[in-house]
């Protein structure tokens, strides 16, 4: 729909007043610019709430499917399996959702408004950091949906609310880290579809070849070796430990290390891709 309305008169004096009323404010901080971009992403969700489908319907589907398909076979009953599985599903689902970061960026960056953003006197990574911050809100939403569904199905975390919150916080740190990898892919790939293809190729082995679904003890040695170093396994173990109040050992450290590693490696590469000419 195009808005049709009589074009209002534009007065030269009003325009000149609009030009000169204010002095230039101090240049905004990197944090300020980042949160402004995060706000932009939030506004878009508000205008098109359907964008939240992937962080609401997806997680519900995953919890239901895995619990009732595998629960009886793997742990005797769905509710017994759920205690082990739910932290894992949480980890897996949020890991999967991170790939939409790259997809959204790929679509967004080609728009004319990015010319304006790139010609502004702001901290250069703010556009991307802002997007990732906003994605944190989406990830949190997915986590809440999964927890609510899980609790309704009989998930009982012994670690209490504190353990659950800590597990989600750790998950968000990991998601923020790995999102930089998808941002890089989002900037390098020609189409949003290509971004998803690449991300899926990485995410399938990363999430399935882990301890999310089953105990790795029955896997062949070489698969076990991969599962053991897989950051998703560390994250799932840490999330289970935190939620159930059992020990987590060095797992949290491994997750933080992996997350930092993702940022250290991929943030500079992403920024280089962002600063390139297009």
């Amino acid at each position: 729909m195009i808005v049709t309305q009589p074009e209002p008169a534009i007065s030269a004096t009003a325009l000149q007043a609009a030009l000169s009323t204010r002095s230039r404010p101090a240049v905004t901080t990197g944090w300020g610019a980042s949160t402004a971009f995060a706000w932009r992403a939030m506004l878009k969700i508000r205008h098109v709430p359907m964008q939240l489908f992937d962080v609401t319907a997806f997680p519900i589907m995953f919890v239901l499917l895995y619990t009732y398909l595998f629960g009886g076979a793997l742990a005797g009953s769905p509710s017994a399996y759920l205690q082990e599985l739910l932290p894992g599903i949480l980890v897996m689902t949020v890991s999967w959702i991170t790939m939409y970061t790259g997809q959204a960026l790929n679509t967004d960056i080609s728009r004319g408004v990015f010319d304006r953003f790139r010609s502004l006197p702001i901290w250069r990574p703010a556009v991307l950091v802002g997007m990732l911050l906003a994605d944190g809100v989406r990830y949190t939403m997915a986590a809440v949906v999964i927890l609510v569904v899980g609790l309704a199905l009989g998930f009982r975390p012994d670690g209490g609310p504190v353990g659950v919150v800590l597990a989600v916080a750790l998950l968000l740190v990991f998601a923020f880290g790995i999102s930089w990898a998808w941002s890089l892919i989002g900037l390098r790939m020609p189409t949003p579809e290509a971004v998803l293809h690449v991300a899926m190729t990485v995410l399938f082995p990363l999430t399935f070849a882990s301890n999310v679904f089953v105990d790795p003890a029955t896997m062949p040695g070489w698969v076990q070796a991969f599962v053991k170093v897989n950051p998703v396994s560390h994250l799932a173990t840490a999330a289970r430990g935190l939620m159930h109040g059992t020990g987590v050992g060095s797992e949290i450290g491994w997750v933080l290390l992996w997350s930092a590693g993702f940022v250290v490696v991929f943030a500079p590469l992403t920024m280089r891709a962002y600063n390139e000419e297009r």
Partner: protein
Amino acid sequence: MSTRHSMSPNGSLAIETEALVKTFGDTRAVDGIDLEVQPGSVYAVLGPNGAGKTTLIRVLATLLRPDAGTARVFGHDVVHDAPAVRRAVSLTGQFASVDEELTGRENLVLLARLLGFTREEAKERAAELLEAFGLTDAADRLVQQYSGGMRRRLDIAASIVVTPQLLFLDEPTTGLDPRSRNQVWEIVRAFVAGGTTVLLTTQYLEEADELADRIAIVDHGRVIAEGTSAELKARVGAGTVRVRLADPAQRAAAEQVLASALGVAPESRPDGAVLTVPAVDPARVPIALAELHGAGIDVGEFRTGSPSLDEVFLALTGHPAEVATKETTG
């Protein structure tokens, strides 16, 4: 050039480029451009699609890195001192450089926040700009629902959230209806009165003539003519004469009369009732009309007009403006 040493208060030209080159593969989109733009002036870069206008603006706005030559904006090098350039300029791109998925108000608040206004100040600033640009009624609608003229006004408003020292307008009126185009012209004039330097690109000689203090005509990435509107007109003739004959059979005779009276041969076109003579000295126009009458040629219509960009090109280069197939390299 004598303007070289006439300096602005802070001691430098608004734009100064020397032998600026930007290539894309085999295409030399900008091929050795020298420009000097005085602070407080409106400078028009006039040329057809694909002439290199957009590339030039993108280099000056720090979005592209030049391959050779230098470009300075208020004395700041666009490569080595890009942050300083970004603090001085604002860009209104050829294609909407506003976020279509946000409302007009949200776009302006976002930019105000990015430029350092507090939340409250940003809201006030957005409201001021919406009012000044006649967008208050549409403020809370998504930009994708805006008409072309509204979108363009919002785009320009977004460029002056903080008053820039230098405003780039890339083809600000392309695709707009005459009324919206006139509004954009009014806006540009208001800016200039307020002291902002404007560099605009356009395909329309009329637009450059209306707005600009100086005009550079570019073709294939090169400046083929530069000067004030009056200087350029003197070089290409004040305008065009179009004659519609009552009887197309008199065409040959009319061509002869016009050629001798105006000193310029009419354009060779397939036979028809209309003759066009480019690059005409206005003083000779009445003579031409009188001589047509004297020769017994019935004139259905006799018009003079500004030369089109094509006619300017014809006069300057001897060939019509070649329109590139794609503007992406332009």
